[in-house]
């Protein structure tokens, strides 16, 4: 199984503002993406991060498991607020006010799509909201999209969500789908903006081929920015995971963006990052200047 994964924030925004997350776990053959709502709540990226990390580690994925993750989220938020207070962050009071008294504004919200690859080419997929899983056939046609409700309803403005509220973790329903992948099929996990673009262009084989060919952050960035520029792709945080050669037993993570590296880079250097290659090259230069070596 060969896996490539890419992530990009909204145009003109930093990776630190990006609320999408994805995680690949080679050991459990589990992959998940999550799209934290970009505003109107607290620490949505953290919530999305905890969801994808826990999904790829844990065997079961149900309401009780997710309730457990809300406790972790809450503690991590408290740690972050404490840190911000020490750093004299001017917005920490407001964040704290929302956390304790903001009602619905005091939680994180995220859509979610996770897949576990089982024996005999079987998959188990969990999906809530408009983060999607596509099964692409050898002939580049879309054989399936999950959630299947997209086929009828399309992409709306009020997707179902997982909420970091122990008392009420679901808005809407999380679906569990079991299916079998045929040899030669490819699987894509995609957050809403690009998922909508792919779904709208499902009859254009050239575009599907173009998506499947993406093999570097730079190419992903160019692809996304080109369609953002011609206004056919909504400007939103965007995540794409491509899974090829599913029948192969060993898992090869070929090109996997690491958002933590990106955020680290931005924090230390400042500015917007357009390509992973540029980041790596610049980091290499910095290390050379510092004589650290890589």
């Amino acid at each position, binding site marked *: 199984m060969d896996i490539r994964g890419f992530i990009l924030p909204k145009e*003109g925004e930093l990776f630190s503002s990006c*609320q999408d997350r994805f995680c690949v776990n080679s050991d459990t053959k589990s992959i998940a993406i999550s799209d934290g709502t970009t*505003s*109107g709540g607290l620490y949505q990226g953290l919530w999305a991060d905890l969801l994808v990390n826990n999904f790829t580690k844990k065997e079961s994925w149900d309401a009780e498991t997710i309730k457990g993750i809300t406790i972790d989220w809450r503690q991590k938020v408290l740690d972050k607020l404490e840190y911000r207070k020490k750093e004299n962050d001017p917005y920490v009071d*407001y*964040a704290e006010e929302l956390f304790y008294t903001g009602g619905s504004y005091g939680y994180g919200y995220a859509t979610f799509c996770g897949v576990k690859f089982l024996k005999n080419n079987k998959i188990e997929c969990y999906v809530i909201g408009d983060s999607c899983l596509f099964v692409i056939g050898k002939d580049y046609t879309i054989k399936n999209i999950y959630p299947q409700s997209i086929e009828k309803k399309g992409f709306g403005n009020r997707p179902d969500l997982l909420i970091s509220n122990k008392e009420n973790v679901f808005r809407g329903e999380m679906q569990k789908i079991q299916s079998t992948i045929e040899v030669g099929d490819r699987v894509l996990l995609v957050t809403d903006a690009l998922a909508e673009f792919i779904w709208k262009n499902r009859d254009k084989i050239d575009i599907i081929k173009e998506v499947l060919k993406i093999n570097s952050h730079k190419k992903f960035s160019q692809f996304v920015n080109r369609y953002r520029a011609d206004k056919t792709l*909504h400007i939103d945080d965007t995540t794409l995971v491509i899974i090829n050669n599913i029948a192969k037993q060993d898992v090869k993570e070929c090109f996997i963006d690491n958002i933590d590296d990106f955020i680290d880079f931005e924090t230390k250097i400042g500015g917007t990052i357009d390509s992973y290659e540029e980041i790596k090259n610049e980091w290499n230069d910095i290390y050379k200047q510092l004589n650290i070596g890589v």
Partner: protein
Amino acid sequence: MEKYTKQWSSSNNGGKDCGILVFLVDKSGSMNELLENGQTRSEMVASVINRTIEEIIKRNQQDGKVKDRTRIVIISYSNEVKIEKAGLLTDLFNNPLEVVEVEQKVPDGNGGLVTIKKKQRIWTKPIGKDEQGCTCMAEAFAVATRVLKEVAQPSNPAPIVINISDGWPQFPIEGIDYTEENIVEVFSSSIDLTRRCAKDLTAIETDDGNVLLYNAYIGEGEKILYPNDEKALGSEDIGKGFLFDISSKIPEPHLRRSTGVKDAAKGLVINPDEVSFIDFIDFGSRGGEGALEIKNK
């Protein structure tokens, strides 16, 4: 790209992609009339606008840091027109007219209590109990036009103007007293002028569409929400007909995301109760920002 679909965004510095929301607030003397709940009209309007701005800020923050996805302008009108407050969301968040700070003890989630400073921000205040003045709506539209010509750029989502008043447009004419004999004539000329000013205002456009002008009438009479036919107003009142005429049609993309609003409905509410009024302001102020939900009342 389909018109009226551009989302409010903070992605470009300087507010080139942000939403623009203008409140025009009638502060004429009649806004001191009491409502059934004991508030004056002016108190209710100020409270709803302040709550709406607070909600907009909450919706457009990330981890407590406010994002400049909207520029808000509050213009009040009586005998004179004033720009009371104008700025991007962070400006409004950091510089309200007044802050009421309340310390509140709340559960910390681990069995204890934590003290939180809860701030209530105020950006517009009701008029004083003894204040008088007429309804210079035409001039308010003209000032809004001037402001939008200054700040609206082609890349902005279509600006939204929400005009809230309890009366029909007037202007003070020196040396003329309003009498039963001349009042229709004076009102008619005021309405004609205001209609022309509203036309100038809604002629301003960005790539996303023309300015949307929504109106709320807070006065007496039957409640009417989002009419799509002037006959629904049910009277020969020239004022209501005037408001129906100048109110923008709710654009199709906004209608698609709402429920309970008829096709070709106008952005107009007459005598809404407090809940419908909050819904109306929320509906108007969300523009292209996200889902609009108008509940059937």
